[in-house]
């Protein structure tokens, strides 16, 4: 508390400056729900996985005596990044690649370490990322176990073995750098027959893959259907698809030693397999609530 006081004073001063610099006496700009200096407000994007991770952060911090407020389900980046900047939330689980493209439209880094470094440079004050976890939720190319065995498919490069490769993905895959153009440029795969399906690797995409209408489907790497159908996720040795490691994005004024320590311990243990498992429990027949899942995970990892 005593150590943090000067930081809080600085923060308040900085805020005062910002506000006066804007010449804004709009009452709503101050009433953004700014939390007291010793309270940390945890936010989350509006999808279950992010909410589960936010719960993990919140419960772990509470267990270490940090005062926590929760504001979950805040829509998309366009909504919650401004909320972080104006102090209405202080901490949110983020994904490195997408966050980088959000703060720097021209970013080209794809390898995990490059993305992390680029993010450190590109993030505007007072935002900073803490330790990056190994857990990733990103586009991933999947094949059925039968096809993987028959054609000997392990990495994306192996797809060259299939003539007239049929691929299903979200429509933007056709033109984005990680999509059809990247397959050709990075892995030399040409003549891809592309089926755009707009459900983000959801049930229709899965159905097309299982029916054999397509050979490969782009499904987010933490989607439970990958586990349920024993799909083989092709490795990406050339980092065609940008890294999307889960990372705590925090307002640096709230990143005390205790807070950093708690969050770093979580990031050290969180894996993609954990996310898959958590999502499966959340979306499967059990429909376990995010708060309950977070508690289980923290207990299993010995963090509570």
């Amino acid at each position, binding site marked *: 508390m005593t150590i943090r006081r000067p930081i809080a004073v600085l923060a308040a001063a900085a805020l005062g400056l910002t506000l006066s610099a804007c010449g804004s006496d709009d009452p709503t700009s101050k009433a953004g729900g700014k939390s007291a200096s010793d309270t940390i407000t945890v936010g989350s994007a509006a999808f279950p996985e992010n909410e589960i991770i936010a719960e993990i952060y919140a419960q772990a911090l509470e267990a270490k005596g940090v005062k926590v407020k929760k504001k979950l389900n805040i829509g998309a980046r366009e909504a919650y990044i401004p909320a972080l900047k104006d102090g209405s939330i202080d901490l949110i689980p983020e994904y490195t690649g997408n966050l980088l493209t959000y703060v720097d439209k021209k970013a080209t880094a794809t390898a995990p370490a490059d993305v992390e470094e680029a993010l450190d440079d590109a993030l505007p004050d007072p935002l900073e990322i803490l330790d990056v976890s190994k857990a990733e939720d990103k586009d991933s190319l999947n094949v059925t176990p039968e096809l993987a065995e028959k054609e000997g498919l392990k990495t994306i490069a192996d797809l060259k073995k299939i003539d007239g490769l049929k691929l299903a993905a979200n429509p933007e895959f056709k033109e*984005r750098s990680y999509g059809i153009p990247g397959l050709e440029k990075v892995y030399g795969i040409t003549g891809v027959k592309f089926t755009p399906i707009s459900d983000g690797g959801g049930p229709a995409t899965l159905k097309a893959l299982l029916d054999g209408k397509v050979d490969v489907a782009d499904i987010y790497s933490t989607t439970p259907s990958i586990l349920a159908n024993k799909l083989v996720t092709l490795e990406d040795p050339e980092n065609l698809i940008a890294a999307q490691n889960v990372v705590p994005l925090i307002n640096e004024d709230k990143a005390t030693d205790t807070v950093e320590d708690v969050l770093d311990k979580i990031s050290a243990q969180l894996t993609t397999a954990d996310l898959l498992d958590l999502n499966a429990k959340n979306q499967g027949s059990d429909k376990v609530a995010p708060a309950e899942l977070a508690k289980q995970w923290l207990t299993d990892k010995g963090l509570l």
Partner: protein
Amino acid sequence: MSVASDTIDWLTDHAHWVGDDSIPLRVTQHVEYSLLTVAVASAVALPIGLAIGHTGRLRGVAVAVTGALRALPTLGVLTYFVLLSGIGLKAPILALTLLAIPPLLAGAYSGLESVDRATIDAARAIGMTEWQVLRKVEVPLALPLIVGGIRSATLQVVATATIAAYVGLGGLGRYLIDGLQLGDYPRMVAGSVLVIAVALILDGVFVLLQRLAIGSRAALPVRSS
């Protein structure tokens, strides 16, 4: 007015008029999906609608069923059919058919209901069979409303056929869905403009057809609808 000028630029760009994502191809696909849907829906709905209108039976059921069909969210129905039958033409055509049935059915039975009972009684009095009454009296007199039903079904289907692109097919929906994902707003506006253009042109055709239908029965007495 940069949106307008960007859209005009997009529409007039030569690159968008050739190749496998070209405007002529997408318009053709869109019209194909729409006409196929209206044909399938007509084959189902018109006989049923005529039967209901002629006999006067099951009207309550028809009203309830068409009301329920109208309330179905087409995108949800589409996803459901895709899960049943996989990707391909079948699922979107079926989903759109459900959308087209209510106006076709309503046009058919309300068309027959609009025919003056005295005219029908007269037809029976001169010895026409039920089939002849339907074919020679009721349908010709009801034709403007039946065509009106087809017209409104076609409009709805043209406007909604964009969802075919959601599950991997073509049509003008490609411009809307791809444009949204890529943040290419001129492409989306151009797609919308093209959908509107196709809808207006087809609607114009139906205005002419309806005029012809009215003209064909001008000599016959009919209760105004």
